[in-house]
């Protein structure tokens, strides 16, 4: 805390961001909360239904709960690909003596491709007729029996729409983790190597514990982005079978013009994210304390 600070200075620094954020984010959220107690199609008069929308969500809507389950699976897949991939590549990079810069850049590239293009690209990859890349590959390696229309098969569609999202942003997390690895003093690692520590131990005992604060940041980022994930599942499956809570909410609002019910769902998403973040911090903190 600064010794020479006045109330005024705090306000001067705090008010502009708070105001901007309040108008751009908080106000619409509160308005949505308000809407969630109504039934409204956008043009007729609003009807107050109390907790009716929430009752419907929790008790009567099987589609919602299916979407919720899908969202959880979607999140897991994204996390494994983004964070797992990021850790793996960052670790591999640490062992290279040449070409790190080029590889980092290339690994990050998918992040700059627009979602629309990614959507179509993966349609091509998953397609069955005409034979897409994935099915072609399976045939080549003799696993032709596994070939299937990945986006139409109800068993695979969810995984199929999760993978591209995981794939495209892995580079971003890799950069963050790699940067954290780089900040570990070379002396510590080299001393450990001299002690005969193998790569795995180096990772588990030194690198990973060292970057824990960064790791928490990336986990929070990845989890919340995954829970809010929308574009690619929406574009790839038209939000049909691999329907997530977000795509279901969007359709309820903008295809079915049921703004009240959609608002109730987004309130749910906010609560869900709060719980998730609380859990992450709780778990990570306990580990640190141990």
């Amino acid at each position, binding site marked *: 805390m600064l010794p020479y600070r006045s109330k005024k200075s705090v306000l001067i620094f705090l008010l502009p961001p708070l105001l901007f954020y309040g108008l751009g984010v908080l106000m619409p959220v509160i308005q949505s909360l308000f809407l969630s107690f109504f039934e409204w199609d956008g043009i*007729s008069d609003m009807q107050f239904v109390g907790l009716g929308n929430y009752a419907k969500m929790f008790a009567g809507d099987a*589609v919602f709960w299916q979407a919720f389950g899908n969202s959880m699976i979607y999140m897991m897949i994204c996390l494994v690909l983004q964070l797992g991939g990021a850790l793996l590549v960052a670790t591999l990079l640490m062992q290279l003596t040449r070409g790190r810069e080029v590889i980092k850049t290339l690994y990050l590239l998918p992040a700059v491709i627009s979602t629309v293009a990614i959507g179509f690209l993966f349609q091509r990859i998953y397609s069955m*007729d005409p034979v897409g890349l994935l099915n072609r590959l399976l045939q080549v390696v003799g696993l032709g029996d596994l070939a299937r*229309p990945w*986006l139409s098969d109800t068993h695979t569609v969810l995984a199929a729409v999760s993978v591209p999202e995981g794939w495209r942003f892995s580079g971003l997390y890799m950069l963050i983790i790699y940067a954290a690895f780089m900040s570990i003093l070379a002396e510590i690692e080299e001393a450990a190597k001299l002690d005969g520590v193998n790569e795995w131990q180096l990772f588990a005992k030194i690198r990973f514990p060292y970057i824990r604060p960064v790791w928490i940041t990336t986990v929070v980022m990845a989890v919340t982005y995954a829970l809010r994930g929308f574009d690619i599942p929406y574009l790839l499956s*038209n939000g*049909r*079978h691999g329907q997530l809570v977000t795509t279901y909410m969007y359709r309820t609002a903008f295809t079915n013009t049921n703004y009240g019910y959609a608002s109730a769902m987004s309130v749910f998403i906010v609560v869900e994210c709060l719980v998730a973040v609380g859990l992450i911090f709780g778990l990570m903190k306990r580990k640190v304390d141990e």
Partner: protein
Amino acid sequence: MRTMKTLAVSVLAAAALVLSGCGTSTSSVKPDDVNPEGEIKPHEISWLLSRPVDGGVITAMKQIAADYAKDHEGFELKFITTPDRPSYIQKLETLAAANKLPELFDIDATPFAAKLAKKGSMVDVEAMLKDMGLYDDYRTSALDYQRFDDGSLYMVPFESQVEVFFYNKALLAKAGVDIPKTLDDIPQMCAALNKAGITPITMDGQDMWPLERFMAYYPFRESGNDYIKKLKKGEAKLSDETGRKAVQWMADLGSSGCFQEGFSSTGYADAQALFTSGKAAIYNTGSWDLPTLGTEDLDASVRDQIDYFLLPVTDGGATTQNEYVAPSGIGMAVNTKGYDPLVRDFLKYALEQYPKVYGATGQVNPTTGDGTTLPSNATDLYQRVVDESDNVGDVTAMPWDTQLDSTSNTRLQQELVLLVQGDVSVDEFIDTMDGVIAENGPKAFAE
């Protein structure tokens, strides 16, 4: 509930610090006040539409608006187009909720549109066209497609399409099958084509509406549009005889492999390509695809093999061969807010000029009279399909996606894919959908 709404709006605007009190409070007319008094003062007007940027409608209307602007300095027609339909609908609905729809906007004859009309937001187009002396120029089928259930008309059609089954003669011959005479012939035909290693029917499953068309075929042949008109209100059920037959037929189409594997994730262009590259035997699409299918741009090996048939009938059905899906496209509604002498004058001018300009682009007009000028490289097929528009019967099949309330419609589209893929049984499908429609249908169509 008025007060609730007032309260809601005031809360919604709570932080609107600079309330635009100056709001250009444009005057609003009554829906049937189609010829408002006053002077024609040229100003800018906007048309929110969902049509391809370089398509015939926009090209024609741009030209007409430019001509009109020559005599009316200060006039401009702004086109705000969102060709992608789901994005468009989202935009339309948010604008409607904010009460910010422009002078002209595109909309299908959906329950949502009916609500807007009931609210007095749309000009009575039937009265308007009659007042302009244009009403009788329009094809009955083109206007009927735009009408609400009570027969009222609030949208102006800009197209006239027929939806037929294009087929590849060589492929059918290879499999030793004829074109189907009745709907019940189709599953068998598919099985035979499959045996010969040919994709029977190419399906754009991604856009949902093409598959939903098939769902509409059987009931339409059996009982015209009556069934869907009742079904959507919950007065008829899928578990009724007509419904069950239709669902069973859809399931049969799926089990006999009528559509290419993975059809539900095939997009429009890919589905079309399956047909134009000679891999699929049948392609159910509208006359809007004629520039691709009926011109010499198409690869000769396929071009010479293409023919078409109309929606097959059923034994003892209620509709005849020349009654099928003949849509006039998404319609244009005229906002009562902002409808002034200028808007009327421009619309009168534009709708008078439109058939001549539009017909010249190789498309069929929603009006009779001005014919279609075929492209110079059109094949014989082009002309024959265009001629079908003049033979369309009295009743045209209503696509279900413009009939059902949107919640039921979304669910139906999802469940249909599952039904055809064999992921749900006929009974499960009927149970689910009857439940969904019972919950949402009556509410949406309540008077």
